[in-house]
């Protein structure tokens, strides 16, 4: 271990000269550390070496680059008679160990043997121990964590905890919800946050229990939560019920004001070529569907006599703008291509939609906006899906196109979805497939769409993108490793059940 000795008033301009401040990478800064007073420093310094200095070390500008450069050069600690105020803050905040110990500095001769114990705050010079100005435990923690923000991040992750409402629903719903829950719990453990789950009724089971597809308590519980996970609803036993179980979904969307439905369409490598009807060997796009306007929510009814019926499609500029804005922003984060799908050659709402899209595109100059008629879009999803990055469309078109896209990519069992509202309101995350009553209770359902919905929940609902990425990677690895449920298995391939597939994902999750 070597010591580098300097005098009083070593300023930040010599620690790292201003001409190198167009860099912020610590390793690059370290190459020029101390260059102007000690050209040999950067070339000879080894990890664990010490800087010994006089009074007022680090005076001058407030640049955080100075402690960063020293730390990145490998210096284990700086021992000085005193430190300049801002350098002292910056050293602590960036995780550089500093000790104020005037007596030790005076005792250190040219070839002194110096040992620093940062835990006890002692500097031993040729075997004689000097006590440095004590460092409180929280500053030790900051330095140990690698800086103030890293230490806070670790604290926040430890304490962050989210409330999630689980709505398992009917059919295979409970089994796939269990799979999603297990995977979320493991991801939370790995990435250091807490999850609290509450189960509530929806759909057929809710009808059977209290006569309503969305009990009041369920909605209230969802409103209080950070995110909602939904399994699946419906089944043949409620075909003749006065209220259909699916009505619970519509009420939930309305109750939480979810206006935005997201469906990522992705071709999973190992499944390319299977059961798929789209062309090309790659597709990865996001469908953004408006969820609370248009035909499904406009005035509808029968004329007197009942032999004539009508539905009306209404969209306000405001409704169009909020979904377009989300889509533009999403495209901006991805490959910067947005396809707006309408039927502007026939429908007035579509013409308004197109006008608003054109207006908004001025605010997103980097995003390439293209318009496509819905009939053509239906074909292009099959013929050339690789052209898409983000598709945005109104409610009815989105309903049809998103199912088409999922089925065409050959993996309805792999398609998650998210329904989002405004900031601060919980989103609902669910697989797009139905309740598959014929598979219920047989450990035969594919849990991957549900697990991928859980990943979306972590990404869009809780803002835990690292955990979400990890789940998506784990699903990819499980598929790469040959895990297949019946719906995605080719003839001759070994088929696993819901639980085994979930276990394979858990094994790959890290």
């Amino acid at each position, binding site marked *: 271990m070597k010591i580098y000795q300097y005098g009083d008033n070593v300023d930040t301009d010599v620690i790292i000269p201003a001409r190198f401040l167009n860099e912020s990478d610590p390793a690059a800064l370290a190459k020029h550390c101390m260059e102007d007073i000690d050209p040999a420093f950067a070339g000879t310094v080894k990890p664990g070496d010490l800087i010994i200095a006089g009074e007022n070390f680090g005076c001058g500008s*407030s640049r*955080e680059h100075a402690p960063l450069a020293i730390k990145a050069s490998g210096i284990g600690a700086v021992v000085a008679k005193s430190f300049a*105020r*801002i350098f*002292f*803050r*910056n050293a*602590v*905040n*960036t995780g550089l160990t500093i000790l104020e110990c005037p007596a030790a500095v005076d005792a250190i001769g040219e070839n002194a043997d110096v040992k620093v114990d940062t835990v006890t705050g002692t500097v031993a010079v040729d075997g004689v121990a000097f006590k440095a*100005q004590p*460092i*409180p435990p*929280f*500053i030790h923690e*900051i330095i140990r964590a690698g*800086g*103030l*923000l*890293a230490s*806070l*991040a670790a*604290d*926040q*992750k430890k304490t*962050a905890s989210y409330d999630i409402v689980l709505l398992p629903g009917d059919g295979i719903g409970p089994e796939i919800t269990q799979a999603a829950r297990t995977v979320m719990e493991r991801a939370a453990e790995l990435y250091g946050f807490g999850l609290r789950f509450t189960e509530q009724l929806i759909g057929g089971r809710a009808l059977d229990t209290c006569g309503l597809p969305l009990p009041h308590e369920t909605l209230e519980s969802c409103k209080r939560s950070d995110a909602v996970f939904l399994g699946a609803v419906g089944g043949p036993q409620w075909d003749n019920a006065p209220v259909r179980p699916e009505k619970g979904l519509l009420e939930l969307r309305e109750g939480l004001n979810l206006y935005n439905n997201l469906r990522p369409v992705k071709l999973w490598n190992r499944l390319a070529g299977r059961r798929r009807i789209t062309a090309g060997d790659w597709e990865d796009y996001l469908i953004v569907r408006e969820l609370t306007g248009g035909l499904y929510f406009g005035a509808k009814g029968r004329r007197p006599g009942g032999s004539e019926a009508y539905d009306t499609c209404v969209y306000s500029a405001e409704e169009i703008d909020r979904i377009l804005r989300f889509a533009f922003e999403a495209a901006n984060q991805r490959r910067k291509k947005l396809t707006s799908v309408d039927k502007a050659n026939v429908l007035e709402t579509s013409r308004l939609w197109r006008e608003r899209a054109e207006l908004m595109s001025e605010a997103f100059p980097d995003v390439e906006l293209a318009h496509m008629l819905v009939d053509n879009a239906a074909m292009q999803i099959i013929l050339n899906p690789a052209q898409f990055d983000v598709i945005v469309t109104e409610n009815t078109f989105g309903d049809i196109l998103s199912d088409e896209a999922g089925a065409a990519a050959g993996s309805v069992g792999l398609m998650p979805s998210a329904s989002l509202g405004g*900031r*601060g309101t919980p989103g609902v995350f669910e697989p797009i497939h139905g309740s598959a009553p014929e598979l219920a209770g047989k450990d035969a359902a594919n849990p991957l769409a549900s697990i991928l919905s859980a990943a979306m929940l972590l990404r869009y609902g809780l*803002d835990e993108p*690292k955990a979400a990425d990890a789940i998506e990677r784990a699903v990819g690895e499980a598929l790469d490793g040959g895990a297949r449920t019946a719906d995605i298995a080719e003839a001759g391939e070994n088929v696993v059940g819901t639980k085994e597939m979930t276990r394979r994902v858990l094994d790959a999750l890290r």
Partner: protein
Amino acid sequence: MTLTQTILARKAGLPSVTPGQLIKAKVDLVLGNDITAPVAIREMETHGLRVSDPDKIALVLDHFTPNKDIASAAQCAAVRRFAKKNRIKHFYDVGQMGIEHVLLPELGLAAPGELIIGADSHTCTYGGLGAFAAGVGSTDMAAGMASGECWLRVPEAIKVTLAGSLRPYVTGKDIILSLIGNLGVDGARYMSLEFFGAESLSIDDRLTVANMAIECGAKNGIFPADGVTLGYLKGRTDREFVTDRPDPGAVYAREVTVRLDALEPTVARPHLPSNVAPASALSGVKIDQAVIGSCTNGRISDLRAAAEILRGRKVANGVRCIVIPGSQSVMLDAVREGLIEVFLEAGAAVSTPTCGPCLGGHMGILSEGEVCVSTTNRNFVGRMGHPQSYIYLASPSVAAASAVTGTITSPEAVV
């Protein structure tokens, strides 16, 4: 304990603190602007940190606004997005904003006994209201937003006793310039400046004095709250606050007395705020520009003082006089009181609130060889433009009188 130490002990939840001690204290407000907040926001996002209490953050877009160029527009856009995403209540954009240190006291966001950190060196202004307020870096700002806490090293204090009362045309600006001249630019390095005997000083004057505490290296400047403070805060805040006093046996590193009646209009010559001289001694210095505004002197009383000199007079030929009201409400009061009319008739230009020229941003940058008398706070080399330009720091009365004569002039010489 000194006044500052008393506040820090309470905010750290400790019975007492001593100079040099490192503490972790609860923060009442974290402030950032369009220059420093984007860095803090980026750091928070890099570390995946969340805001702990959106109501304890103030974001003010004041430095290069209304956006002076594309880069500054991008900075503001980043802050705007962050404010919206995190539902920051105290976010002030063009149309509501003012220069941060003019705006926050006006809005009642600083009160006695509170602990305020801001990623702006002039955050120490709020000491004028009896708060502990200190400038910090962007990393500290990010940490403050994420944790609601800040680590601090407890400072020693210099006790400044203000004796007597000010003569006409002598202001808070003259007090602080003469004190900086006395202490030097690092004379209070790391320490608190604690001011006593200020009963006769208005809040605007106290804010001006505290504002420039940093210019002699101080961590903070502070006035104990009194009746004047309580009168100012009435109707501005309904938060409960504590009015602290120092212990009778408080230990000070140094004590100085400023005889207010002996002060005269004071000017800091280039290129240090400590390089002071009486305005009357500088009457030969020709000026090209006069700037009246900034976080130091952009309040309504500053505009009134300038208008008093400029009313019925004209800005001298060859001098550009730029008046920058410190906030929307200062501007509105100035309109209602007819001050803006006075400025325009005198041949001055009036700008929307901005830090603008004070830090060489925009709205009055100096060319090579030009001389400016300015009510701002720093006269370092190149601060307002070209490295070979010259800044004289002064009060609004001196700046206005100088604008009228074209040379540095004491107000008594023109009225």
